[in-house]
């Protein structure tokens, strides 16, 4: 079972994974981000409205799905499925089924790029202020009604209305200078300033969500309360039933404009406990489930398929108040020492079953817009780290590592934090780990909500100096995540260095050519890496277990949870 047999099993495991991946690739389009030109993003210039052909393949047989029968997927929603109202708040659990039930204006191809959704084209006017989406014709809602541009405009206006607290309102709303208006088969909106990255915000699964609801139906059922109980969308799966706290059930929708579901009935179960999900797989109660990197051998032993979506999670360290003059973290030597004290390879081997790779950059991986491609992860050099600490005079400094518990944006963040603490202790820093909840962490690191006096006060009362071990799933475009935290006018402003980061980010935000955006963001990531403003840690893939019922599946890169269920074919 272990030792030599362990090694053989491991080889078999790697082989199986490769086979499973290639099977997935062969059957349903590329599953993994193919390493094309290092870093260069796919070209989809949006300076003029242009027709972009769909790259999502239609299912081989045009018959509506019926052969496959039932499919059960077991995931952990962590916070429970909250229901479909995007006006309440962002709900990370909903993204597991949202794009099955609802269509998005802009979709994502398997390698994460933007492709048409129910908007066949989109483009910006010559003055860069007005965006126009051309709405696909012939689409139907689940109740048989047509999807009209009026429905689109209505849904989006509702989402950005003043009463809305959803992500769509908070991120898109403030930049709009007009309502969404309809003209023919086009929906348009104007922004206050040129905003080149608007399409990203309309893309599937990145909050906020640009879906389309049926206005008639919505009003028929009496508003959001009725709609929530029986939502009607236009996606490949129709919401049929729900056992609150246990599962949601969907039935294949045969009139979808391009997506043909592989299974007639789909149940998505909300199971918090990993062992229970594994038990469901092994006993055949579930056909696909979220696993973890340590389950690979176990799944193989049980004759289950192991599917991996590489590079779907990334983790990094933030230094709090690194931008404040005189703060220890303002000293590049301390930041560098902390980062190079960590042996990322050893953590990957020890803690993560050798399924991770050291990350080079903050919140961006190969295939994303902005991935520099020529930047190395920080090295492991504890001797140099010790020397730097001594030189800078921070021996014995107290460091607090703050991290999440539960909402596993990256696998086992608390464990990762403890490993990091071990390395920092080894170079002479006194470290301890605080596992808190997400909002406490955000409050500590967000500077947008603090006045300069508050900041000065907080800094005066340190040590312990705080670093955060954070993680997330990966995104198509790294601009959004960077802007929120690194721009001096960003939403959260984790770091406020207008001279260093603002020009880079502004350049990316004002370029309408995707290649220009990419180049500007790559420069940003180079700067972050070179000056140790962030210490990137690890990239990991998501691991899923599946029974033989799953013939093929086309996951989208960057999503560590089951999704794209309609592509599951027997």
């Amino acid at each position, binding site marked *: *079972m*272990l*030792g*030599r*047999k*362990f090694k053989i099993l491991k080889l078999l495991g790697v082989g199986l994974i490769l086979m499973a991946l290639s099977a997935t690739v062969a059957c349903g389009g590329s599953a993994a981000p193919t390493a094309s030109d290092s870093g260069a993003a796919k070209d989809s210039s949006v300076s003029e409205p242009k027709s972009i052909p769909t790259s999502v393949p239609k299912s081989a047989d045009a018959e509506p799905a019926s052969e496959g029968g039932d499919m059960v997927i077991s995931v952990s929603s962590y916070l429970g499925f909250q229901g479909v109202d995007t006006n309440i708040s962002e709900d990370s659990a909903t993204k597991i089924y949202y794009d099955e039930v609802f269509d998005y204006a802009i979709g994502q191809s398997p390698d994460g790029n933007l492709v048409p959704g129910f908007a066949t084209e989109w483009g910006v006017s010559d003055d860069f202020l007005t965006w126009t989406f051309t709405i696909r014709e012939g689409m139907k809602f689940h109740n048989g009604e047509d999807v009209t541009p009026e429905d689109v405009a209505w849904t989006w206006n509702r989402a950005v209305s003043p009463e809305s607290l959803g992500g769509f309102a908070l991120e898109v709303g403030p930049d709009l200078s007009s309502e969404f208006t309809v003209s023919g088969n086009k929906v348009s909106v104007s922004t206050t300033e040129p905003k080149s990255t608007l399409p990203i915000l309309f893309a599937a699964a990145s909050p906020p969500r640009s879906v389309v609801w049926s206005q008639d139906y919505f009003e028929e059922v009496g508003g959001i309360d009725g709609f929530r109980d029986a939502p009607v969308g236009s996606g490949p799966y129709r919401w049929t039933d729900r056992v609150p706290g246990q599962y949601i059930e969907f039935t294949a929708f045969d009139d979808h404009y391009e997506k043909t579901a592989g299974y007639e009935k789909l149940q998505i179960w909300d199971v918090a406990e*990993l*062992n229970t999900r*594994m038990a469901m797989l092994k006993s055949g109660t579930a056909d696909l489930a979220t696993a*973890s990197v*340590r*389950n690979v*051998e*176990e799944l193989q032993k049980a004759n289950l398929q192991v599917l991996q979506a590489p590079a779907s999670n990334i983790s990094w360290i933030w230094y709090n108040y690194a931008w404040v003059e005189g703060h220890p973290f303002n000293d590049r030597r301390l930041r560098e020492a902390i980062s190079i004290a960590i*042996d990322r390879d*050893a*953590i990957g*081997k*020890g*803690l993560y079953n050798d399924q991770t790779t050291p990350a080079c950059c903050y919140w961006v991986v190969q295939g994303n817009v902005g991935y520099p491609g020529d930047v190395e992860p920080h090295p492991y050099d504890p001797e140099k780290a010790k020397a730097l600490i001594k030189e800078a005079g921070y021996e014995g400094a107290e460091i607090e590592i703050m991290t999440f*518990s*539960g909402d596993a944006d990256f696998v*086992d963040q*608390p*464990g990762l934090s*403890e*490993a990091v*603490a*071990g390395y920092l202790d080894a170079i002479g820093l006194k470290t301890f*780990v*605080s*596992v*808190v*909840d997400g909002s406490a962490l955000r409050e500590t690191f967000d500077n947008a909500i603090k006045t300069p006096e508050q900041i000065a006060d907080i800094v005066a009362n340190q040590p312990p100096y705080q670093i955060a071990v954070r993680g997330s799933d990966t995104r198509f475009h790294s601009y959004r995540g960077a802007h929120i935290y690194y721009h001096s006018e960003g939403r959260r402003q984790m770091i406020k260095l207008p001279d260093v980061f603002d020009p880079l980010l502004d350049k990316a935000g004002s370029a309408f050519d995707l290649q220009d955006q990419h180049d500007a963001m790559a420069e940003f990531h180079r700067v972050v890496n070179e000056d140790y403003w962030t210490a990137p840690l690890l990239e990991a893939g998501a691991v899923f277990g599946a029974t033989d019922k799953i013939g093929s599946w086309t996951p989208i890169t960057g999503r560590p949870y089951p999704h794209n269920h309609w592509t599951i074919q027997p």
Partner: protein
Amino acid sequence: MASATSTQIVMTNVWKLRLIAMFSGLKRAPKIPTVILGILLAFGLFGQWIAPHDPITIDLAKSFTPPAWHEGGSISNLLGTDKLGRDILSRVIIGSRVSLALSLTIIALGGGVGVILGLVSGYSGRKVDSLIQRGVEVILAMPTILVALVFVFTVGRSFESVMFILSPFLAARFTRIVRGETLSIRERDFVAVAKVIGTPAWMILLRHILPNVFNTVIVLATLEVGHLILLEASLSFLGVGVPPPHPAWGLMVAGGREFISSAYWIALFPGLAILFAVLSINLFGDWLRDTLDPRRRQL
């Protein structure tokens, strides 16, 4: 005055006799549980000298080492290592300190307050009694785990916050039981006598009632220790137990459950430790109750 002194003499003698009886009675205690308890005590007191390794030092090169009898295991890590390469045996040994320290502090704190309130409640007039009883009922009506979850989540995870929030629940239980005992004891003759000769209430409580209640309290305390260890485990499962890197048993089991199929030893051995410890404590407490106060079996 003479009778008061003789009452006092009788009382002190009774205390002494009690102690003697207890110690000689221990010889007749059930053997296996007592031995296990002895080991536990040794771990608790001398753990840092018995444990082969430091329970907190991380060594990633040794992560997930299996126990010595498997391929790839080694004698130096007899029971294997956990995800960060820490020795399981050492963590189980030191873990006994953490788990027991937690339980005992809560019992001391909560139990102490509970006993006092119980005595007062049982002995005082209707109003005070009613007030305390309502308070007790309110606390007992609240779902312990949920309230603890809320509290620790808000205040922050620490040994102290867990201790602080679990104490009231324990106090409530003690109050209820002690009150019941006090109610029946205060009807007894020697209390009536003490009242008649003018002994102040606090002295009656201390000298007459408390010793008689004492046995029940001891038994309840032993039974609650196991309960608290399990509570700590459940809180760790929910993510609000004692924070790492403290090697508390419940935390180890909760943290190790992810690896049941790939590295069973991480959760199994602390789980066994809990099992044997709690079982022994409960069996011992049960025996204690049977011998000390056969009439109080209804506990």
